[in-house]
């Protein structure tokens, strides 16, 4: 990938990096090396720019991010009530709270659940829990990707979850990443490592909240290790404030006969990217990556979704839906790579969009790279407006135009919302959707009849 002016980007973050390195004394040597490698990679790459030849960033303008400055490592105070008001919550869940990148034991709500070790990543690093040394930054941070490299340079804390072999948990585990309220623009690089053992079954909710109104920069990275025959039901909720930058990464490595199902709900941030990669690394692994994004105003919302079929007999399904209004811009970049050995692979990709305004723009780019010959694959993408015949149908029954549009937009979102199964989570995404729809329709100009 071609990148411009890495020096300027390095300069922006170098002060923070130097102070991190200066306070490096109680950090294990292996982590120092990992950080250093992350910094070296980032120094080489700089921030991605929108220019010809840079395929991954062709549609996304990071100029506002490049132009901003962020302080590092300033934590604010947050209360449990604020978190409960801003995001999904259920007392029955195990909830790990990470504030401005740092684990908070006080705000977390952890039950003594047999087979679950949930807590601070910093603690897991210092005490060398499980396979943390080999796992951390093994899926994300050693690749040629600026934001995981940057995040890796700044690894300090976040959340660590280890699920012992054979553990099946009915109640979800939530990890809430919250940005505290502060007028100052800050950067945070929270990490999440999930080590799900063999024959485990968990529901994992990853939630990104922002309690400030100011512009914040967050580059979270989640690395998920799905052990043999494990089942992970994953949800990702991103509702950052509309002045913020959220460059998130999820990397999943799946072993044999694993089942990873993920549904994303992305409505926040000024510029947001949800970069997901699943590696189907043993026969019989299957992944389902779904999501709903809604954008208004001048928001940019990217779904950069990729799956690698490395071994035979794996299944992948990507299905995203977008609702766009105002002058917002969304990107769906779905990629499936089927390696030479991955015979009997089955891959589908779909991206459906509802454009509510002339100014809204979607770039949908599903792509398949197939090196095996015995493969079933299909992909498609659509962008449409609210259908006027449908609108007339609803109106003819007495539903006024505004209500009819709201019903149709809600109907479009419905199948994705239904995927959010835990009650408190479902209530939450439905509430946020119902709050967003009037805003989307306010900025709508292509539908309706005079």
């Amino acid at each position, binding site marked *: 990938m071609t990148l411009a002016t890495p020096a300027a980007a390095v300069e922006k973050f170098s002060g923070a990096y130097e102070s991190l390195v200066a306070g490096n004394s109680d950090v294990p040597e292996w982590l120092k090396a990992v950080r250093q490698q992350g910094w070296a990679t980032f120094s080489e790459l700089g921030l991605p720019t929108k220019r010809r030849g840079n395929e991954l960033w062709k549609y996304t303008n990071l100029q506002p991010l490049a132009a901003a400055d962020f302080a590092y490592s300033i934590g604010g105070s947050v209360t449990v009530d604020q978190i409960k008001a801003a995001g999904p919550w259920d007392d029955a869940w195990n909830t790990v709270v990470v504030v401005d990148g740092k684990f908070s034991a006080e705000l977390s709500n952890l039950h003594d659940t047999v087979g679950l070790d949930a807590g601070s990543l910093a603690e897991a690093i210092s005490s060398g829990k499980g396979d943390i040394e080999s796992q951390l930054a093994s899926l994300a941070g050693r690749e040629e990707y600026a934001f995981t490299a940057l995040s890796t340079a700044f690894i300090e804390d976040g959340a660590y979850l280890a699920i012992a072999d054979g553990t099946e948990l009915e109640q979800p585990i939530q990890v809430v990443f919250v940005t505290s309220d502060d007028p100052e623009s800050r950067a945070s690089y929270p990490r999440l490592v999930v080590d799900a053992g063999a024959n485990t079954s968990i529901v994992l909710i990853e939630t990104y909240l922002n309690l400030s109104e100011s512009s914040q920069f967050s580059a979270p990275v989640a690395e998920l290790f799905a052990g043999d025959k494990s089942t992970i039901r994953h949800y990702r909720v991103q509702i950052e404030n509309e002045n913020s930058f959220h460059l998130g990464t999820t990397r999943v490595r799946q072993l044999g006969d694993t089942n990873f199902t993920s549904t994303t709900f992305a409505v926040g941030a000024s510029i947001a990217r949800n970069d997901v990669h699943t590696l189907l690394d043993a026969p019989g692994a299957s992944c389902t990556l779904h999501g709903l994004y809604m954008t208004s105003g001048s928001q940019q919302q990217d779904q950069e979704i990729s799956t690698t079929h490395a071994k035979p007999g794996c299944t992948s399904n990507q299905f995203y839906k977008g609702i766009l209004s105002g002058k917002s811009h969304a990107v769906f970049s779905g990629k499936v790579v089927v390696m030479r050995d991955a015979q009997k692979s089955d891959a589908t990709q779909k991206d459906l969009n509802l454009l509510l305004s002339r100014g809204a723009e979607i770039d949908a780019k599903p792509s398949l790279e197939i090196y095996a010959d015995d493969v079933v694959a299909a992909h498609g993408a659509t962008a449409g407006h609210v259908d*006027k015949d449908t609108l007339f*149908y609803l109106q003819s029954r007495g*539903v*006024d135009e505004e*209500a009819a549009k709201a019903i149709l937009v*809600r*109907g479009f979102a419905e*199948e994705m919302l239904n995927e959010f199964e835990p009650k408190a989570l479902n209530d939450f995404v439905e509430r946020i959707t119902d709050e967003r729809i009037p805003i989307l329709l306010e900025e709508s100009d292509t539908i309706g009849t*005079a």
Partner: protein
Amino acid sequence: MLEINNLHASVVDIENSEILKGINLKVGKGEVHAIMGPNGSGKSTLANVLMGRPDYLVTDGDVTLEGESILELRPDQRAHLGMFLAFQYPAEIPGVRPWQFLKAALDSKAESRGEDKMSVRNFSKLFDEKVEAVGINPNLVKRSLNEGFSGGEKKRNEMLQLEVLQPALAILDETDSGLDVDALRIVAEGVNSMRSPERSFIVVTHYQRLLNYITPDVVHILVKGKIVKTGGADLALEVEKDGYQEYLEAAGANA
């Protein structure tokens, strides 16, 4: 109840596209009128223009309901006055359940009339009763509106809406098209059970067969955008026997 005077209508944004060329029609309270005609006669357009479909532009004439012109009203406002259109091709609406949508329709009507909205409990009761009355599969109405419904199921769903909304004037736009005899009977039973001195119907149809089950008070033959003949129920039988040819020839000669 409904009066149509010299109604002319064209397709919006298309020049020289006049379809209705001076329709005159009076439908009294409690009456069932059938409008028959060959393909392209404008009968479906008439049904849609009455409901205010934005694809058509009224260029002349007037339509009044209980003496008040409705042409300036939006479709939802017409519905609030008691009008209803059963569609030839009901829209499939993903993610929207019939229950939810009918509740919204009734709420909107109540609001427009300054009445209280029906409670969820009472509405559910009403809805369940009507589902049973119409004989629609209860599992079907839990799904998205019309999505994956068969032709018959869609029409039955239209009858469900008719039952729940209880309109004063129901217009059925070729509701019989694509139906087998059993489904046809269901539609007819729905209409017959709702006939009352307070409710009027306009039944638009190409074929006479629906009128074997729904006996109209008045039958109109619509050809090339004009009503060319009006008569009693037996007029439909004549058309069945002789076809539209003589009317088409007469209209051709006048054109």
